[in-house]
């Protein structure tokens, strides 16, 4: 016997008319989407005040499933676009959800400068160690030795530690989780949404179809089981110390939570001063 689903419990937050989504069977990106939407629901966040922005890539499709104002920019420019939105209307909360390649290869410049400015924005990066959308090429987080379409003999480039890069660039909140840590991830997203300033959450997500296949990591379930085995929670350590070695050890946790003056507030303050003065 089958029953029709009357109303999906997340109807107010998701564009259910666009589900099933485009992500592959066993892909971790759907978990990230769940977690984000759950955080909004837990916070009873005012969806009129939310703008979700993505770049290009598998992860970049996330903005299209969230039922707020949302925008899918060009490859690498999500943070730049989001900066424009935030400065133009500081009442809005802007969240950027995008991939490791989008945010740290082609878009890396905007990331470090947005963090430096400390503009109020939550950036969630799905780190799947490769370019999923274009068929699994080498990216800025691909581990040494990993095989991708463009590192057929094994990667020889040193990867970024994204959380460390965020912290060193000036982010006021930094945490890293895997898709397996979905509850803790949800809690961090809630913190990130509330945090005033540039916040960064790195989410290690299995890309089973391409990265998993080239590196013989099995299906999504196997990759999730692997994450379960190798991840270690260490709250509060500075992220330069937070190892990220897929297959060996991935340190997760809440790493940075500090206070600093926020950019759009300061812009508003001197606009006020100039207009009155």
């Amino acid at each position: 016997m089958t029953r029709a689903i009357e109303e999906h419990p997340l109807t107010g937050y998701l564009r259910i008319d666009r589900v099933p989504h485009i992500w592959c069977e066993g892909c971790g990106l759907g978990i990230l989407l769940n977690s984000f939407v759950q955080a909004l629901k837990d916070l009873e966040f005012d969806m009129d005040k939310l703008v979700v922005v993505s770049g290009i890539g598998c992860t970049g499709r996330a903005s299209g499933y969230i039922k707020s104002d949302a925008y899918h920019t060009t490859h690498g420019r999500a943070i730049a676009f989001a900066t424009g939105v935030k400065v133009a209307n500081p009442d809005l909360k802007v969240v950027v959800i995008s991939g490791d390649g989008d945010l740290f290869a082609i878009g890396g410049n905007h990331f470090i400068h947005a963090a430096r400015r400390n503009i109020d924005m939550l950036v969630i990066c799905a780190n799947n160690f490769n370019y999923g959308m274009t068929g699994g090429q080498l990216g800025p987080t691909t581990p040494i030795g990993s095989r991708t379409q463009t590192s057929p003999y094994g990667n020889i480039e040193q990867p970024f530690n994204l959380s460390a890069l965020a912290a060193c660039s000036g982010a006021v909140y930094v945490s890293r989780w895997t898709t397996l840590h979905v509850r803790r991830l949800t809690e961090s997203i809630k913190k990130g949404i509330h945090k005033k300033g540039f916040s960064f959450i790195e989410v290690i997500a299995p890309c089973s179809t391409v990265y998993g296949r080239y590196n013989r990591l099995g299906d999504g379930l196997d990759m999730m089981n692997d994450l379960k085995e190798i991840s270690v929670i260490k709250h509060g350590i500075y992220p330069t110390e937070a190892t990220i070695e897929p297959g060996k050890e991935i340190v997760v946790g809440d790493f940075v939570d500090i206070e600093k003056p926020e950019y759009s507030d300061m812009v508003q303050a001197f606009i006020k001063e100039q207009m009155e003065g």
Partner: protein
Amino acid sequence: MSRKVLTGSYFVHGDWACAEGALAAGCKFYAAYPITPASEIAERMAVRLPQVGGAFIQFEDELGAMAAVVGASYAGKKAMTATSGPGFSLMQENIGLAIMTEAPCVVVDVMRGAPSTGQPTKAGQGEMMQVRWGSHGDYEIISLVPSSVQETFDLTVEAFNRSERYRIPTFVMVDGILGHMYERIEIPEPEEIDIVNRKKPTQTPEEYLPFKADEDLIPPMANFGDGYHFYSTGLTHDERGYPDMSIEVQDKLIRRLSDKIRRNEEKIIRIEEVDVEDAEILVVAYGIPSRSALKAVEQARAEGIRAGLLRLITAWPFPTRILEDLSSQLDAVIMLEMNYGQLVREVERAVKPTPVTFLPKLGEEPHKPDEILTAIRRCSG
């Protein structure tokens, strides 16, 4: 005194006039990366925007500046950036994004010449084709070419109005000479300046389809934060804004994006004609060289030569039909550009088979009236 939008008479340069024109039009957001000869626009905006309640941000590069302008436009603000050749090249992809997602915005290019870094401090008209075709795919844009400091002010206001009216990036193509040249300008009272604002949806959020166009092919635009909860993407999209890879949706969208301009060409195109009615020799020019052209045409008339001047005020859409209609009365056309041959090809196409003499100018100096007069005499002899 300098707190609000200015009114009155000022002795200023083109970049200054451009910045004040933007403010008069209601610009509330400016993002850019410094570059000669456009930096003075940024510098003026950095001082003035906060005074009128707007925000200025110096970006880390022009790719980001252009993306931020699109973001600010979606957040409901009139937004502008200004740059020059190299920066204009970097902006092209996100200019395409503005076209595809129909974000009203203004891009000012204070032109120099040559590929790459060229001569940074010198003027040119090097991006007249790039502004039309620089981003990939099929599209139309509007671009305006002022030839005086006053007109730089006026056309910047006009650029905002057109971008808001047609939901399209609109370009003001200033050249390096004009950007740095001082002239007296009159800024009218605010009530005397026509301001156009984007069409807002009248539907409820539930009924709203963000890319469903009205009769005029332009969809009403909700702003982020208005409660419409809509999605917009640079991918080919249907009326809901959802990605759609079908042939039908691609065909419909791409046609509409161009047709909203093509169908309104007559309203959009602006030219200035001097002594064209009975002209046998037509000088076509735009921007700074058109000032020398005017002198030359006046002298030619004094010598009894039936010469006329057609000055482009909009470069794109190009006034092909107007030139076509004139061609039967013309014996010769002379085209002036501060480049090695860009819009002259459009002129040739339009006036065929009338012969076209092209006078290129490379490197700072605009054409001298004398050399234009010599060319007119040669054509009439």
